[in-house]
């Protein structure tokens, strides 16, 4: 199947623009993080949530009810958006709008790549990193809808921008057809699962890092004295990390499983301790340890967060070191 040069060119432009818009959005978020009151508010609000008032909603029933006491019930009554917005907050909102724009460009770059080559757009490392980063930003946007953490967006966008920069410069690969080993529908399933889970794993990685910073600050207010208080409460960071990990872990497991099935068809064995397989195994065990640690007394909190950061490090290691440095069967990087 010939490669459509024009579409490929549009894809490249779209990619570059997306990175530029991400950088701009990052600047906006940094302003909000540094000067906005969002950080402190966020922390305060999570504390309040636990003491929130009760509201027993529901359509007109029969008997009149008087609620005497309630606890642990949430309410949607207080709406922070009605409070007056400061300039940094407006910038933060613009940052979100820019991020959404960049996501659209990013998505366009990926789709155009696929159309240019008439195949799934994750056949080499450049494309793979592009896909991972897209998943990360989308996952983060979903988190933004649930938790008051907008001002932290810059910390998620930073690794994304770095990855995309490295991908777009050092690892860039010209649009080309797939080598025979990759011509399989398992490429669609296995790599999609791997990219989706790696992309999502970036979010708990960042959240857990911030957790460690905040925990350190709470133990000793002198360390990170300016930065620490602007982070949300530990609970919020822990919840973000847990929710995203719990989503990504089964997807990752599925990806590894599909990889094994594919390896059986392509390489003659379903598992052979190829470097990529080994590091995937290590990452899997680390994330399993994370899930265990949250169910083990004395390991919740800081230790769990540290484990998640290790998992993040292993994931990045798997992405770069194993593809670029070691010589394994997974050397589809397309950078020779």
């Amino acid at each position, binding site marked *: 199947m010939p490669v459509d040069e024009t579409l490929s060119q549009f894809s490249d432009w779209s990619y570059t623009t997306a990175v530029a818009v991400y950088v701009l959005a990052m600047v906006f978020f940094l302003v909000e993080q540094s000067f906005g009151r969002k950080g402190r508010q966020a922390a305060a609000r999570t504390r309040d949530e636990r003491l929130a008032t009760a509201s*027993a909603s529901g359509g007109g029933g029969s008997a009149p009810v008087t609620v005497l*006491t309630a606890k642990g*019930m949430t309410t949607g009554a207080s709406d922070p958006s009605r409070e007056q917005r400061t300039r940094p907050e407006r910038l933060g909102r613009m940052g979100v709008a820019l991020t959404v724009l960049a996501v659209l460009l990013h998505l366009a770059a990926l789709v155009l790549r696929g159309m240019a080559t008439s195949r799934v757009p994750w056949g080499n490392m450049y494309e793979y990193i592009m896909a991972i980063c897209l998943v990360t930003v989308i996952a983060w946007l979903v988190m933004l809808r649930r938790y008051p953490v907008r001002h932290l967006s810059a910390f998620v966008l930073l690794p994304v921008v770095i990855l995309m920069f490295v991908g777009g410069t050092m690892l860039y690969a010209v649009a080309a057809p797939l080598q025979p080993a990759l011509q399989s529908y398992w490429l669609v399933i296995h790599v999609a699962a791997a990219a989706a889970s790696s992309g999502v794993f970036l979010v708990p990685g960042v959240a857990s890092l911030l957790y460690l910073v905040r925990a350190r600050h709470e133990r000793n207010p002198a360390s990170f004295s300016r930065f620490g208080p602007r982070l949300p409460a530990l609970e919020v960071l822990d919840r973000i990390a847990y929710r995203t990990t719990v989503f990504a872990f089964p997807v990752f497991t599925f990806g590894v499983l599909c990889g094994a099935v594919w390896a059986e068809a392509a390489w*003659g064995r379903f598992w052979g*301790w190829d470097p990529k397989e080994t*590091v995937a195994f290590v990452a899997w065990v680390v994330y399993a*340890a994370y899930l265990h640690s949250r169910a*083990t007394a004395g390991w919740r909190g800081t230790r769990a967060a540290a484990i998640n950061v290790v998992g993040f490090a292993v994931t990045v290691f798997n992405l770069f070191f194993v593809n670029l440095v070691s010589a394994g069967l997974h050397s589809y990087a397309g950078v020779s």
Partner: protein
Amino acid sequence: MTDTVSRESRPSPAGHRPTRTRRALAFVRNTWRGLTSMRTALVLLFLLALAALPGALLPQRELNASETASYIEEHGWWGRLLDRLQFFDVYSSVWFSAIYLLLMVSLVGCLLPRTTEYLRAMRAGPVLTPRNLARLPHHVRAETDATPEEVLATARKRLRGWRTVEREEADGVRSLSAERGYLREAGNLVFHFGMLGLIVAFALGAMYSYEGQVIVHADGQEFCNSGTFNYDSFDPGLRVDGTRLSPFCVRVNDFDATYTGVGQPIAYEADIQYQSGADLESGTWRPYHLEVNEPLRTAGDRVYLLGHGYAPTFTVTYPDGDVRTKTIQWRPSDETTMLSQGATKFDPPGVTDSERRREQQLAITGLFAPTAAFHGDILTSTHPGLNDPAVAVDVMRGELAVEAGRSQSIFGIDQSMVEAGRLERVARENLRVGEEITLADGTRISFDGVDQWASLQVSHDPTQVWVLGFAVAMFVGLGASLAVKRRRFWVRVTPAAPDDDDLRRTVVELGGLARTDQAGYGEEFTVIAGDLLHREPEGGKAR
């Protein structure tokens, strides 16, 4: 375990023995408890991850023996030390096995009690309503005009799908306990049992599987899985001695590689025929189109197309008119251009004296390029496809020492013979197809053409279906154990007592407890409570 317990409770006749026995038993019991605790599992998991890592960083003998050997050589004492510590055979090393065996023990020790506990919990139903519901993380206390029976009826309806139990308490107070999410624990058990099964099946696979590689010329040459000697290399599991291989035969009729203009491969395909089972007797051959990602599955084995290469054909015409033709596979030294290396070896014909025959052996050795380009006299290849083949060869005459016990690569000559002066170069030439060299004694050597060969791998692993089954079970269990949430919900209704000022209306108390993922329960509890109480609070402001 049962054994230990019964022996401990038996009264002991001896004097000092019991204390020592008891102490030993206590030690065993404590070790067991320690080993099966969650914290130990966690530490073992970490150790396992850590222990697996060197396998990704250091070359592994099982995957690449020659790279391993040169790594050890390069790193001197350090390499030898790592070797002694089994760092080049990580996955079969003592320490790696020890960790995962301990993890298995821990897993079993953890699963058995959890399974029985789970079954007991399933049978027992939801737990009693706590005396003080206000202590729970989620709690509402409200008054209603509905009767207790109405409240409970509503609750029963709303909590359909939960397991519920109703109980009578003192003074007409009634309560309902509800619990949901039993599937989570079931999924968790399935996951862990699946993992156990997977590890066992994996270990068995390592014992009963085998793998062999063989190069077959794509000109109708046959290969039969009748013995290990048919393979170029054979890697048996611990319990495989190579005597009872599944019988089948494969014949490679044609091999085809397709490349883009710049030499990127697009497709490798081989037309083969095979026979197995009854076909072996009847002599029937069945066709198969062998491709990367499309192995042939027959007789419980799989046949893969792993690689390919070229086999140049040389003809030697001796001065006395004798002609010998050979087509021997050469080995690609550069996968992207398929520049290949090899040695095609000839015995002199008609020489019976073994001493003299050995001195008259010939070897044609050097480089082969499928698409030749010459930089001066240096041959390179510019494309992996067979567009313009040429060879750059040295013709060596003398003693090849092929029979001399030491196994010799078919792709090269014994350099020590060259150094000893017993093998001499008699010509060096670049040849295109059809060209020939004439040696001083009148022997003519011609390069006649090129064949292709395919390298096949045969794999046998009787347990891999089991591994897949357990892996799928693990995945399903994992999904259930992470997605299902365990929640408890209690309702306690205290009927109105007309004579009591405080209790003119029915008092309803609701309590909620999340057994997992605490954070998510708030909203859900609010919704259920709202449905049960049916009404907005009328100014009745809560704390």
